[in-house]
């Protein structure tokens, strides 16, 4: 089922891109590469690793491993409105309805044999304990070897050294399974792509800061999190360049002025994955999501001479690896840089990591006069969606900001 989905997506998007060969079409190019990745994951002739969100996908890619974080599949199932079936399967098997639906959906897919069997599994302790628990379930279910990258929360020399040593150990673990040693040359190339992508990402985010912003409410949806899967590749660089070109084009042509920007908003953590017209609704109200919390480059360029240390520093620097005071400081910086009027926190149900500090985040942003709308919503499981209530609260919030 999933292979067909990705295969059809690849064919459909390719056809559309062929009809407009001169167009920039950044989102379509992005969707095409993600669909190609999905197809590879389900193609059965690749070395596959299911991973935690902060795994070093560039390094794994350089070792010939097709890898992906499991929450990506949860999001795809939700966006294609097929998550319900898998959520029920997981719940029937005893997975609590109070748990994160990204994880429940993907676990349901494992139980229904709708996931490709991995060669091995790489868990990461960041962002969340629940994610690590689910990949342990993967390892147990598939009887596959399991490696954990413990990402310390404290950014200290010892912490970086510890994580760097684990990353190096991980390369031996991977080599043992693929029978291919780490090639410094290939890793160097991947890190070069990663650095070029990172620079382009910085440019993209700088352009998004323009007032009025050239982004629309969907343009950079979950971009920072998902791009991590592609950044160590030429395709990643091409996509970033396409996004940058499209934003420049929008600024040049004034296309973004078409919908007047009255209110500038930040979206905290991940977006809602299933079809829910919040973006259109915000658009109608003159509100624009100019920044997502996780759309930022928080790391220094990768040093090919110290690859493991560089990757370790990068992993620890990601906002959801840090403690909440650091995360709030990061959000405050974004709020000021993007000159936002308010923020929306979806408070994804079941997420202790991101949603847990809800009150602390509200207070932290209030300290710099940025009001926060806390929604109570499950970003993956639409079965209990109180659509009317959410709409009323969003409308009231925008009215208040206006």
């Amino acid at each position, binding site marked *: 089922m999933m292979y067909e989905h990705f295969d059809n997506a690849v064919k459909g998007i390719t056809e559309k891109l062929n009809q407009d060969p001169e167009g920039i079409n950044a989102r379509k190019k992005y969707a095409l590469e993600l669909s190609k990745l999905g197809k590879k994951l389900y193609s059965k002739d690749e070395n596959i690793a299911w991973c935690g969100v902060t795994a070093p996908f560039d390094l794994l890619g350089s070792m010939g491993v097709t890898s992906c974080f499991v929450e990506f599949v949860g999001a795809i199932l939700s966006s294609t409105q097929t998550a319900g079936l898998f959520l029920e399967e997981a719940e029937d098997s005893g997975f609590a309805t109070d748990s994160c639906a990204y994880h429940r959906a993907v676990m349901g897919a494992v139980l229904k044999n709708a996931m490709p069997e991995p060669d091995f599994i790489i868990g990461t302790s960041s962002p*969340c304990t629940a994610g690590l*628990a689910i990949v342990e379930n993967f390892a147990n279910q598939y009887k596959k070897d399991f490696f*954990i990258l413990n990402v310390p929360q404290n950014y200290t020399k010892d912490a970086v050294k510890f994580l760097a040593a684990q990353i190096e150990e991980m390369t031996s673990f991977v080599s043992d399974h693929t029978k291919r040693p780490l090639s410094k040359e290939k890793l160097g190339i991947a890190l070069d792509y990663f650095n070029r992508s990172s620079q382009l990402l910085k440019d993209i985010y700088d352009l998004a800061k323009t007032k009025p912003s050239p982004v629309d409410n969907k343009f950079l949806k979950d971009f920072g999190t998902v791009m991590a899967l592609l950044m160590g590749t030429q395709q990643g660089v091409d996509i970033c360049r396409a996004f940058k070109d499209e934003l420049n084009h929008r600024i040049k042509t004034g296309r973004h002025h078409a919908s007047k920007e009255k209110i500038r908003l930040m979206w905290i953590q991940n977006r809602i994955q299933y079809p829910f017209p919040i973006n259109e609704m915000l658009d109608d109200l003159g509100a624009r999501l100019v920044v997502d919390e996780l759309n930022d480059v928080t790391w220094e360029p990768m040093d090919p001479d110290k690859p493991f240390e560089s990757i370790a520093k990068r992993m620890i620097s990601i906002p959801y690896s840090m*403690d909440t005071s650091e995360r709030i400081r990061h959000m405050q910086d974004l709020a000021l840089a993007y000159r936002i009027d308010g923020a929306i926190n979806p408070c994804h149900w079941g997420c202790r990591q991101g949603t847990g500090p809800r009150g602390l985040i509200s207070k932290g942003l209030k300290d710099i006069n940025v009001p926060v709308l806390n929604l109570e919503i499950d970003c993956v499981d639409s079965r209990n969606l109180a659509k009317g209530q959410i709409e009323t609260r969003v409308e009231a919030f925008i009215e208040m900001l206006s």
Partner: protein
Amino acid sequence: MNKKIGFTCAYTPVPLIEAAGFSPFRIFPESKAPDQAGHLLHDNLCPHVKKVLNRALADDLPGLEGMVFINSCDSMRRLADAWHEARPDDRTILLDLPSGINNLSLDFLSKEYERLAKTLFKWNNESFSPEIIPEIKPEIELDKIKDKIATWNLLAASVKKIEEKMSLDYFPGIASALQQIINTAATDSTDKALAMAQKKIEPKEPAKAGKSPVFIFGNLLFDPKVYDLFEEWNVHVTASDFCTTSRFITPVDTRTDNNIFRSLADSYLKQTPCARTMDTAKPGSIAQRIVQRAKESNAKGVIGFILKFCDPYLARIPMIRQALQKESIPFIMLEGDCTMGSMGQQQTRIEAFTEMLGV
């Protein structure tokens, strides 16, 4: 009375707290403090963390010289975050705790425990620099730590003996008494707990028949009254696996390594881990461990008691259930919120379960 150091997680080595001249004070989630935690943390966090935070917000705590937090799970991380807001003047330390068990993790954790020791001695205005200690003449602080570990190990041995008796026969009141001993070690002193334990090794009352032998496990079950209730409901607790029961009294094996912090790391990370800690060589080994503990303690059934919203345990329940089913060991899973009220609601289910098990 000694100055107190607060802590919330069983991965906190009490001997280090005592060696630095403090009394341990594990903050249990028992409080009539009003529910205010929702102002800082989301309501979907585990009731353990929320109730501890309620205590902090309501100042329902004794005087504390500092707080030790462990980055053991998302909820504990969030508690450490919220503490700064609730009690900004408190001295705090957050230790990173690896999730997987291997040499790198153990080395790292030993450094974290060393950092804890240094911080605690500093908080008590005592210097501590084990890295410059000459091998021939160890500094007094290391001796203090070793002494406290020795007492702790005596307590662990006594607790083990009591548990061995519990697994063989039903002695009325012994489970509750054991919990009181463990709580004393957590909130007062190891010495006092040891004295209590040594008195309880030989039960005063003779063994009785007529209760169903059950192994209980989960995250947190600290109230001695709960064990009395279990007995009223026909349960003979043969053994338990909670971070507030014998799992908390982790014996520290100091024979294998000269570095005391490495010994602590080895012992705390490897022995009877919380669900959040994994043996990567045996994914899902928690399920086998529970089967084994149930069998070793001669239990006929297993009760899992899990706090709501506890991801590490809730995510492992399906594999635990499957492993128990495979061995034909009956199992029920109860969810609660740390209150006696929530336990009271389980009476009918527990009684039906023990009736089904028989004696």
